[in-house]
């Protein structure tokens, strides 16, 4: 099994197209970091403008605000919307790409069971997703920490602001990246499932993105009838729950409680729903693939 996984990873990382995603992430992160390095104050002013009616912020506070942690939060907010496309590029190609190249039929004449083949293929796309996230974490988090330094972190919400102490932030990012890995694996599993039905990779990639876009719009829409009937069951409604790690509890005086998460059960429930989707998508793809006649 390990040998087969090594083969899959070798094939993925030998393809030039694999590095498009790494390049795209590096470019976006770099552009955001450069922009905020040279014009960060304008950005902070813009962020604060929504709250300025009820809060008064000193210049010193604004300077402290613009640190590596906030920059990473901004990047994560931007990139985690685009990441599903990058993940679908590889997962959507997993089976359909092999069918298109004609290598699927040769691979399946080897003494490897179809279930084993699917497990290895899926594991490889999960590893790719993780590699992409680690790359993003290295650039967005550690890169920003190096460029902008660290300080207490402030997150803006519609209800007000969340403030976390410097030492209380890094673990939250680790948890958020872990959660993002599960969220992106859900997209990967969907693209993987669609890949089983197709004979070229464009179809599953476009179909995955279309589904993600439609469901995201549904998740974001404020239509009361959908709020309790559909939204809680859409995986897209739970993909942004990583932000929950940055919402903290406060004591009676309104002071932030270090190490706390405002609504951990909600975050865990979202995590469970995403995991259930992964199991559903993957087991369906194995079930379909085991019965499929290979005609390409």
């Amino acid at each position: 099994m390990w040998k087969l996984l090594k083969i899959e990873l070798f094939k993925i990382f030998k393809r030039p197209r694999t590095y498009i995603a790494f390049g795209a992430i590096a470019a976006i992160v770099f552009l955001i970091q450069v922009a905020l390095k040279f014009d960060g104050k304008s950005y902070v002013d813009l962020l604060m403008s929504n709250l300025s009616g009820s809060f008064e912020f000193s210049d010193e506070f604004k300077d402290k605000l613009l640190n590596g942690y906030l920059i990473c939060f901004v990047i994560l907010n931007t990139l985690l919307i685009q990441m599903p496309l990058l993940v679908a590029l590889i997962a959507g190609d997993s089976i359909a790409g092999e069918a298109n190249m004609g290598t699927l039929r040769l691979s399946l004449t080897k003494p490897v069971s179809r279930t084993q083949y699917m497990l290895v293929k899926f594991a490889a796309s999960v590893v790719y997703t993780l590699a992409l996230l680690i790359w993003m974490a290295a650039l967005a988090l550690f890169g920003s920490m190096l460029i902008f330094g660290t300080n207490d972190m402030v997150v803006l919400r519609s209800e007000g602001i969340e403030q976390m102490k410097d030492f209380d932030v890094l673990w939250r990012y680790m948890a958020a990246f872990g959660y993002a890995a599960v969220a992106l694996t859900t997209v990967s599993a969907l693209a993987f499932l669609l890949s089983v039905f197709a004979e070229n990779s464009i179809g599953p990639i476009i179909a995955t993105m279309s589904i993600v876009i439609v469901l995201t719009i549904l998740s974001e829409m404020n239509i009361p009838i959908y709020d309790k009937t559909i939204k809680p069951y859409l995986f897209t409604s739970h993909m942004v729950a990583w932000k929950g790690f940055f919402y903290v509890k406060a004591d009676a005086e309104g002071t932030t409680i270090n190490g706390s998460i405002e609504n951990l059960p909600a975050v865990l429930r979202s995590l469970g729903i995403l995991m259930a989707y992964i199991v559903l998508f993957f087991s369906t793809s194995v079930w379909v693939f085991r019965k499929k006649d290979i005609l390409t």
Partner: protein
Amino acid sequence: MGSIIRVDRLTKHFRDIKAVEDLSFSVEEGQVYGFLGQNGAGKSTTIRMLLTLIQPTSGSIDIFGMNLQRHRKEILRQVGAIIERPDLYKYLTALENLRIFATMSGIKISEKKLMDQLAMVGLEQRANSKVKTYSQGMKQRLGIATALVHDPKLIILDEPTNGLDPQGIADIRNLILMLSSERNKTLLISSHLLSEIELIADSMLIIDKGKKLVEGRVNDLFDPAETVVELKTTNDEATFEKLSGSGFQEFVQERRNDCVLLKLHRNRIPEVLKELVRMEVNVISLHSKHSLEDYFLSLTTGQPHVEAPKN
């Protein structure tokens, strides 16, 4: 010698399309077995069922005396195959492709052995070139190397000479003959070209519309000395009349298009020529055709060009 492949009443339907119908045959150990049929006759579907790529609707397949469904892994460990085109990872080198398929076949193989395998198909100089830079013939040879990398007992090649130039076809033919005679492999080779199969196969099966038409040893199905002569003259009608009234009456088959067909032993051709000169027939051309080619066509197209030899 025992049966390496035993197919019993194999059937595959794709909804309303009957791709293979009640097909039974067996391949003996050490044989080169030709699997013939026109394009769309059901050859590839049958081969895909032999390789578990397609699930049969009914019937059974035993390979090496084991049921294919129940012993898939054990069987495929000893089978090497190319199905239609030798599609490989074009962005990888020949050596990398070979290593991948060797690992998937469950064997550990040294770099030297991989290079030996490439040398066998004449690709050792291009071992580190990406497959996308290969010609069709080179891809085909690399495909054969990947099929043989784990030293299988049974080799299944589906249309192995498709898209190859004459030299490429000759190279593949020689390789097949070498595998059979020197390495004692059992080979099942499908083709729609009879001329190709008869040069290499011991036995053959001809199918059409998914059904078996005939199966047997090539020598039993066909007398190599028997030939069909296509005779073109300035007046075919008169020639046909004259020959039908001569001592060669029994050899005259029919008048077709712009020629007269005769079926006879090769040794009798000079006599026919003498007779034509004696009858003052103006011969434009005399072309000796392979009678098995006509036999094959008569079986698969349903048009009896010449009388089929009896089995």
